[in-house]
């Protein structure tokens, strides 16, 4: 193949690549931008873009909806509680799994991560049947159980990854210098795995705040989470106050992203084992 042909084909490939990347990014971002714009739309119907005037009417309507306030309160309570339980139990479990090679360690590790591979709907139905058999019918307890199950693996996984990535010689140095194992853990190991704990907590919180598949089974008539409430109203009518709710949820994600970037950094995030194949 001669040089000009080669240069031509390289340029075509380069151009095709840029076009494709543009298309991909547009596909990923455009719907979100449309939602943001429409949430501030002043019209009472879904009209063509751009909206002639902006207003906060949909946010006002959202604030006036009782089920949104109830759902949001429950969602936040559950997400905070579940994340706290995850960080406590998950970190302890990960530290235990990291202590030396005992028999069945691989199996236990797989067991702690296994809720990730069981479809959420299956977990939801299983928990519902089990909890009602043993007499737990309270919506809040049921939701909390479900959310802890589906979010615990995130914390276990990220803490395990940061435990594996830490420099063990630092602990050794502390022990050599006379620290007890307990002191070495609290002053050396724990600060070293903090980024894993933060990443795990952020993911656990985000997953809990977003879950529909498990929560749909575990709600009771007076206790439901925000996503469950939104899905029901999404199916009932087409109302832009849901777009306003979507904007608020995007803002929550933005806060989570800032936390991640501040405490962990995106470069290290990829080493936390969440996106490994």
């Amino acid at each position: 193949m001669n040089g000009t042909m080669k240069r031509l084909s390289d340029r075509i490939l380069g151009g095709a690549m840029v076009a494709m990347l543009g298309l991909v990014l547009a596909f990923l971002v455009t719907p979100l931008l449309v939602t943001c714009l429409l949430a501030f739309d002043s019209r009472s119907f879904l009209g063509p873009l751009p909206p002639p005037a902006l207003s906060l009417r949909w946010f006002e309507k959202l604030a006036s909806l009782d089920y949104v306030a109830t759902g949001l309160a429950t969602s936040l309570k559950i997400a905070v509680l579940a994340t706290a339980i995850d960080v406590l139990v998950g970190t302890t479990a990960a530290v235990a799994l990291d202590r030396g090679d005992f028999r069945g360690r691989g199996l236990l590790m797989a067991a702690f991560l296994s809720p990730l591979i069981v479809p959420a709907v299956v977990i939801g139905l299983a928990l519902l049947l089990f909890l009602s058999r043993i007499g737990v019918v309270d919506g809040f307890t049921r939701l909390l159980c479900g959310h802890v199950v589906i979010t615990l693996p995130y914390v276990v996984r990220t803490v395990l990854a940061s435990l594996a990535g830490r420099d063990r010689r630092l602990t050794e140095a502390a022990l050599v210098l006379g620290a007890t194992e307990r002191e070495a853990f609290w002053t050396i190991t724990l600060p070293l795995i903090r980024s894993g704990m933060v990443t795990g907590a952020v993911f656990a919180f985000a997953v809990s705040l977003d879950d529909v598949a498990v929560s749909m089974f575990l709600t009771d008539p007076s206790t439901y989470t925000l996503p469950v409430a939104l899905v029901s109203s999404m199916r009932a009518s087409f109302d832009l106050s849901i777009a306003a709710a979507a904007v608020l949820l995007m803002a929550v994600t933005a806060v989570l992203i800032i936390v991640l970037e501040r405490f962990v950094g995106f470069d290290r995030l990829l080493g936390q084992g969440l996106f490994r194949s």
Partner: protein
Amino acid sequence: MSALTAARPQEPAIPSPAPARMTFILLAPGLLLLFGIFVLPLLGLGLESLRQYVPGRVGSAIDAPLTLENYRELATASFAGVLYETFKLSAAASLVGLLAAFPLAYCIVRRFSPRQRAACIGLLVMLVLLSMLVRTYALELAFGSVGIARPLLLALGISPTSRGYIEVLVGAGLLHAVMPICTLTLLGTIQNIDPRLCDAAQSLGAPAWKAHLGITVPLALPGLVSAFLIAMTFAISAFVIPMVLGKGRVLFLSNTIYTRFSDVANYPSGAAVSIAMLVISLVVLSLASLAHRRKGARS
């Protein structure tokens, strides 16, 4: 490489006492939790799937006789239809997602400036963290039957309420979810490929497309396979996407399970579908870990 095993510096030879009792105490709360609200419920689900169901009841009676009737129902044409729909759309979305994610991941790793790279990874992580419900709703708002794209669709002669279009829409929803995951997964794969191999091919006269097709793609193949299977496991268990975008016209396995629970209260049948779905996910996932192990063996 697995992040769990990759970066472990030289194991200390110090005689760490690590009393087994302490390890056990630390493990106990997690194990208790896992057993109590995960393992037991799943076992219960397996048992429920074998119970006989009497129509009109809510769930099975405590002493209902055991039967395989619930599983026999899985052999019907309607169930096969749902299974086919789930797999067809999941495979299509995963494949397209992979095709789009690969060049994107390649550019992020090899072409972009550090600032562009950080911005891109930031966007992708944000998308992963962003509520699935928000993304699904956004797609509905943009491309749904009453969405912004409606005039455009009608002008093109596409009916936004036709089954074909709804299938495409559900596929697009899955694609939106799967693409960032694929891209982030592939970053590591591409990072591990020596860029000099491709440079060498090109300096020896190969055009870029040929160099990539002959070198980058084959070297990334195991990573591509496992990214595809990860996307598949995600897509086949999707719940919100087919429920919101499919509007009851396109049903996934997960939606069938929910309907058995909410509409007819036939828990034994829902449990049987759940067990079937669990088995399917496990099969796809074990294929993924097989691909991963082969990748590990090669590198």
